């Protein structure tokens, strides 16, 4: 079945696009947007903080996920068991609960100890964002660690045996053969995990980190306008998701498709 070149623009699609455009225009005309200029700067800061959280926690989480996956796939039992337990516990409880446990639970415990209050870390421990970063990083590491376990186990044995036959050292095998192939295998799921991570970031608003979701909530509380900020918020998240998907598609296109 060969499709014509402009199969995407079928008549019914044109009608649907026209309806969607009409909805957007009527939303722009009939809804209240006069609050936008006042909150413009705050919204930009919020978007920046959301993206910052996403990038930092994904990068840190990935760094943690590699040892977690490796320990489960090839480690001795005293490394594999704790890694598996960590992944099970984090994946088995809601992120919101983990976040509140860290922020309200640990956060209320720390001030009792004078040596913590006098340490250099105290100015950070009093703020909310370190807790958000830790919780989101652990969550990403646990989910991606599970993926990396499968990816490490999925690299064909022959590849590793060939590397050993060449006389490569164990660390060189890991760096040059095992890790790159495992990451290639994990890449398709990585895009999905990153989108899931983006969708987890608004939870940090519940512990007073001012991300874009928190900005929208503040608009709602200040002006009693309910729908407009939420719709705009949904649109912003849609756009960020689109960018993530595009970036990963580019990345995947640069890597040869056939593995193993």
């Amino acid at each position, binding site marked *: 079945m060969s499709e014509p070149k402009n199969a995407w623009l079928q008549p019914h699609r044109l009608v649907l696009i026209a309806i969607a455009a009409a909805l957007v225009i009527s939303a722009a005309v009939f809804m209240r947007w006069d609050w936008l200029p006042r909150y413009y700067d705050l919204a930009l800061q919020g978007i920046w903080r959301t993206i910052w959280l996403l990038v930092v926690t994904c990068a840190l989480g990935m760094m943690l996920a590699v040892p977690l996956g490796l320990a489960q796939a090839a480690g001795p039992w005293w490394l594999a068991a704790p890694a598996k337990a960590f992944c099970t516990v984090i994946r088995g409880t809601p992120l919101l*609960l*983990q976040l509140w446990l860290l922020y309200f*639970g640990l956060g209320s415990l720390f001030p009792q100890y004078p040596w913590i209050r006098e340490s250099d870390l105290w100015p950070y421990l009093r703020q909310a964002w370190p807790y958000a970063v830790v919780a989101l990083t652990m969550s990403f590491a646990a989910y991606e660690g599970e993926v990396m376990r499968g990816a490490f186990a999925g690299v064909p044995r022959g590849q590793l045996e060939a590397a050993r036959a060449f006389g490569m050292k164990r660390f060189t095998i890991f760096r040059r053969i095992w890790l790159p192939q495992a990451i290639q295998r994990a890449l398709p799921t990585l895009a999905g995990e990153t989108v899931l991570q983006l969708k987890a*970031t608004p939870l940090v608003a519940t512990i007073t980190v001012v991300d874009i979701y928190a900005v929208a909530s503040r608009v709602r509380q200040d002006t009693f306008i309910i*729908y407009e900020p939420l719709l705009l918020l949904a649109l912003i998240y849609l756009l960020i998701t689109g960018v993530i998907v595009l970036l990963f598609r580019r990345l995947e296109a640069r890597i040869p498709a056939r593995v193993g």
Partner: protein
Amino acid sequence: MDLLALKPPGWGGNLLRGLLNSVYIALGAYVLGLMIGIGGACGKLYGGPVVRDLLETYTTIVRAVPELVLILLLYFAGADLINRLLEAMGYARVDINGLAAGIVVLGFVQGAYSTEVLRGAILAIPQGQIEAARAYGMPPLLMLRRITIPAMLPFAIPGLANLWLIATKDTALLAVVGFNELTQITRQAAGATKAYLTFFLAAGALYLALTLFSNVIIARIERWSRRGMPAIGGGP
């Protein structure tokens, strides 16, 4: 530990009631999501071009926007819409039942994911089986019941099991709109007694127990649905 006692000075009973509420919402949302999913998957596979495009829009948007934002949007918009409809028809405004609202909102989100899972599972059925059923002259509904659903189950169950685990954890998000499920009650208990760590750890243990228990059941269902299929990796 006294704080976790089941009788009233302790909060254990409240926590368990919260867990029960969470399980109710998760079950309701899951079943609703499955129904939306079956309809959505059939629509995506066999529907006309307009139905397909609309379903594609639904699944894309729901899967790209955070659940928290969707919950707020649907919660406010849904309650508002129903009340306006009631007023237009001359009835008094009603307060939306929190349990029902939670189920509907989470079910709507789950529906998008189960649409994709079921669509993939139906596509994974060997084409010959469906053609054979057609050649025997089976009517579509009988074919759905006797061929499509049993044949797709082994492909769908891992994805559906994942969705169930997501559903149980997503109930925690309803705490943000003030619904009395486990996380919200935990927060109240912790706020009242100042024993934050105790209560959050206890709630975490309850969620974990729910997940592990679900895993046992899921493993059984998976074994049952795979009966008659060759074992993976040539097992015994």
